[in-house]
């Protein structure tokens, strides 16, 4: 009997930890706002992907340095390439205990699914913490050492013979691939996988011929000399350390248009109180300046780039137009 009460209590405890938080809607906002309950840190991707790992890393920094009086609890809402997460934020307008870690599906998902009725310029901007970069990767065994070799090899293999791996169609990797194809007049077979980590593994296992992975996804294999980056999709001089040693397309003489970033930002639902917004901005400002974050940026090849407030919203709107054009060129939207 005692045991049952124990299990019941456990159940209640779990229900409390997971659920109650999201039922209660806040109504007032006191001065010098602070969260009164755990903050729901929504991630618009599934568990274990790049976005998820990054969000949990940020949660770790907040926890370690006690940047917030209440914990940030990650909650994955990856359904529909983040459609579920965006809709959730929209439906929770005014709720100051929810924030969202974004990636570029912030632009592409509402463009591709106008049905979800989300306008990203309405969300409350918190902070842009970094821009993640992309490189063109091949295996070391392929013998390809430069972009020139690469173009020759792809042309020789033909569309059916050259397999480019990446994440889902219409997502970042496929947009970068489209840039590459258009620029050099290449044709490849694009094979979509579930996440960047899987894509990296497929390259090392030689099931595909090339990828446009983020640095963090290939770093281990590069260190082990299993794969090599041929070029960075960044402007000249943006990357530091070993990542800076990779030539950019600009440096190779291919112009300045071969640039694509993955933004790593945090936003909140529309219409949250100003002082709640200020609280989150100050938390992420501390995260941004932390030693852990700065060393992560250099180690994992991200470009630092703090943005907040109206500037961040303006950046989102600008990028949305860039993506509208990219998706149109790809034939993904009309």
């Amino acid at each position, binding site marked *: 009997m005692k045991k049952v009460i124990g299990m019941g209590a456990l159940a209640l405890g779990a229900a409390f930890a997971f659920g109650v938080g999201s039922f209660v809607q806040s109504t007032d906002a006191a001065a010098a706002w602070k969260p009164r309950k755990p903050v729901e840190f929504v991630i618009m991707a599934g568990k274990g992907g790049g976005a998820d790992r990054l969000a*949990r890393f940020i949660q770790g*920094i907040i926890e370690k340095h006690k940047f917030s009086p209440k914990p940030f609890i990650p909650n994955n809402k990856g359904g*529909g390439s983040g459609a579920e997460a965006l809709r959730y934020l929209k439906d929770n307008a005014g709720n100051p205990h929810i924030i969202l870690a974004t990636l570029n599906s912030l632009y592409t998902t509402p463009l591709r699914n106008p049905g979800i009725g989300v306008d990203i310029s309405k969300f409350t901007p918190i902070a842009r913490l970094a821009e993640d970069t992309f490189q063109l990767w091949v295996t070391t065994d392929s013998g390809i050492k430069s972009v020139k070799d690469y173009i020759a090899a792809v042309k020789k293999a033909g569309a059916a013979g050259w397999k480019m791996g990446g994440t889902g169609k219409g997502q970042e990797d496929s947009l970068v691939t489209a840039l590459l194809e258009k620029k050099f007049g290449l044709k490849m077979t694009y094979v979509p996988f579930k996440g960047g980590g899987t894509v990296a593994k497929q390259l090392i296992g030689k099931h595909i011929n090339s990828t446009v992975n983020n640095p963090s996804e290939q770093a281990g294999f590069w*260190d082990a000399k299993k794969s090599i980056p041929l070029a960075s999709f960044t402007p000249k001089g943006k990357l530091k350390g070993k990542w800076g040693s990779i030539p950019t397309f600009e440096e190779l003489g291919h112009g300045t248009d071969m640039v694509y970033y993955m933004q790593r930002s945090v936003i909140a639902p529309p219409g949250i109180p100003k002082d709640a917004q200020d609280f989150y901005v100050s938390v992420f400002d501390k995260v941004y300046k932390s030693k852990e974050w700065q060393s992560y940026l250099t180690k994992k090849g991200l470009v630092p780039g703090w943005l907040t407030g109206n500037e961040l919203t303006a950046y989102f709107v600008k990028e949305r137009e860039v993506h509208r054009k990219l998706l149109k060129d790809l034939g993904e939207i009309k």
Partner: protein
Amino acid sequence: MIEVFNLLIEGFAVALQWQNLLLVVAGCVAGLFIGAMPGLGSVNGVAILLPLTFLVPPTGAIIFLGALYYGAMYGGAISSIMLGIPGASTAVATTFDGRPMALKGDADRALVAAASASFVGGTISVVLFTLFAPPLADVALKFGPPEEFTLMILAFATFVGLGSDDIPKTLFSIMIGLAMSTVGLDIVSGQPRLIFFDLPGFYHGINFLVLAIGIYGIGEMLWVIEQSKGKMVISKAEVSVRRILDTIKQLKGSIRQMLMGSFLGYFVGILPAAGATPGSLMAYGVAKTMDREPETFGRGNIKGVVAPEAANNAASTGSMLPMLTLGIPGSPTTAILLGGMVIWGLEPGPRLFVDHKDFVWGLIASLYAANLFALLINIAFIPAFIAVLRMPFTILAPVIYVLCVVGGYAPTKDMHDVWLMLIFGVVGYLMRKLDYPLAPAVLAIVLGPLAEASMRQSLIMNQGGFDIFVTRPISGTILVIAIVLLVWPMIKAMNKRRTAKA
């Protein structure tokens, strides 16, 4: 080999420090309870407790989380057996025979069998891990989309080819599961599919735990209520040291299933994206197909508990291998562990075994320790768990119901899933009345998305040609095994009929 031995001894020197030993025990106990809570599995446990690990050094942190992962694998079996609700997705296969055993009054035997099998699976897999980590990482790399797809076909073959079940009904059940697994976002085109009534909840697809808890938790409860017709029902439940020892002796008869489950689970665990859930379901399927009396499965056969439990523990170790050696998670839980390693400043990947020997070998050694402690702690708790079963069903039923609702809600925190789970409960109950097997539907919803993605990726790679599955050596071999498994029970059935006639 000597070098491995030396490294392992150094690892034990790390693992057996008292702080680390304490962390192992704490991890096992926490894991046991988290695993036993329906809906809360090792994924949630590791995710919730990850921030706590900043208080200790990285080696201690991974030891704690590794022990928790193990404890959850043991714990998952507890509610599967006692309440018929899968404690975690990895323990679904354990309900198939564990629950019927409990209804027969053999709950303690089932719990002991599950714990012992978990111990064997865990131990075998850690030994394999110790001896062959780097070469096995290469095997994992050899698995591209075609190999993954044929492996899924193999898993389905083990379930279709069950001679004793009605084959058309099994196929029907698989098809229902497959259809449900396509709900949500299509990974290849990125388009939403089957979003019924425009409900946003369908965007994340139908979570397989929602189906499993609905069918086995709610459905089971409805079933028992109907059977008891309002009478007070108290399950028989005994426990004594003698019965426990007796059960351990009897386990000799299922050593083959234990070994098969261990090796199969370990191997499936190594393959990225698969993890312990498919591993345990496949082990159950193989155990049933290969058995002389497959018809006794699903009715409380101890072998049906042993095989998946050995497999899920073995797979949990297996899935750490690609995480440590390749930096790619083999399961959702290891994906979160991987995130933890980044926070602790460790770089998973090929260099980890060279640059952080003490970390890697400390972890491996502590897995040996965690395995032993989880077994002891689990067996020590069995009398307490059995006491729960002695309660009248009128009290137990509302508790099960609450646990089901919490379990359906916890993973996604979406009421949509709770309603869905209740619907599945009623449908599951009706299917059961009409004698449809439910396990194949559960298998299909787990493996469906993996099978679909890998098939389409293979076809894209080969410009639409199906020959890719036959011409690649590994996938070709697996395909042949799958066909044999599919045909085998039919031949057996035909032989039986012939002998019966003669």
